[in-house]
């Protein structure tokens, strides 16, 4: 068990049970919130934990403490905010779990994109470009395209929900790979949806 930096006694808590000193924050976001590393989590429970911890860790509370304690409270508040922003959003939460397992959705990952997906996205983009270049008559097909992309995104989200459940039941590389493939696909569809919505907005003001 780790020991308290101040009194040297054993502690694994946020505050040393012996001397009460604040301890350096856990760097893992799930550990920080004392939550199991699951992809399905109760966001209202997370919110409660966030507010309770905000009250305990706020740097103002440490203004009369030692420099070390001030520094730890600042560090802990920073981790708290990053961890909350990351974990409350299901997509960012999933990306975080992927990155913790060495599976970033990073740059230079083109080899991980299935060619069929690229072909499909390319064709969808071509069709969208044609619609955008068209006159006011193109509004109906653009709206149809928006509905289609929204439907595709909803389908991906349902797939992610199932994949999250699969990971929580049996964490491992297979489950994470499936999630990464869905997240990759979602980014492309999200961009298409954004573009078609922008095109519709432009037509509306034209």
């Amino acid at each position, binding site marked *: 068990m780790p020991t308290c930096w101040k009194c040297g006694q054993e502690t694994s808590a946020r505050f040393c049970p012996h001397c009460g000193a604040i301890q350096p924050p856990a760097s893992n976001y799930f550990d920080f919130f004392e939550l199991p590393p699951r992809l399905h989590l109760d966001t209202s429970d997370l919110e409660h934990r966030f507010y309770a911890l905000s009250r305990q860790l706020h740097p103002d509370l440490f203004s009369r403490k030692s420099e070390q304690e001030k520094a730890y409270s600042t560090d802990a508040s920073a981790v708290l905010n990053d961890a909350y922003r990351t974990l409350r959003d299901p997509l960012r939460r999933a990306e975080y779990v992927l990155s913790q397992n060495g599976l970033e959705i990073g740059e230079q990952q083109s080899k991980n994109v299935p060619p069929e997906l690229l072909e499909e996205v390319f064709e969808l983009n071509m069709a969208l470009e044609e619609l955008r270049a068209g006159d006011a008559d193109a509004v109906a097909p653009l709206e149809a395209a928006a509905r289609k992309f929204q439907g595709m995104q909803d389908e991906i989200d349902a797939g992610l929900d199932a994949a999250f459940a699969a990971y929580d039941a049996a964490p491992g590389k297979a489950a994470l790979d499936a999630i990464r493939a869905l997240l990759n696909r979602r*980014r492309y569809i999200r961009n298409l949806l954004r573009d078609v919505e922008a095109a519709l907005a432009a037509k509306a003001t034209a």
Partner: protein
Amino acid sequence: MAYSDKVLDHYNHPRNVGSLDKSDPTVGTGMVGAPECGDVMKLQLKVNDHSGVIEDAKFKTFGCGSAIASSSLATEWLMGKTVNEALQIKNTAIVQELALPPVKIHCSVLAEDAIKAAISDYKQKQTSRQRETATA
């Protein structure tokens, strides 16, 4: 973030936008994507059968200004080069030419990947073509 003049020039006046016949055995097609930003880039090149020199190159990119400029520049550089010379084109040269900021370096990597993918497609077609002539 401000784009460099060269990026803006390629973005506003992209060179060689379009497509070549995918089924032509002297045409290589490379399709690559960057899930991080949702970009997709298609780059094609046509190799002269006799000289082995790239005589035409086309691209179509859906993505940010830097991705469009990187692929536009790549097609300019490809023309007149042999396939082996084309394989020497490095993303770092694209970064330099377009003065891409660090956050846009992946766009140049995408262009280099697209060149490599197009050439590998072309070579694959050539090998199967030779096999056909050998068996014919």
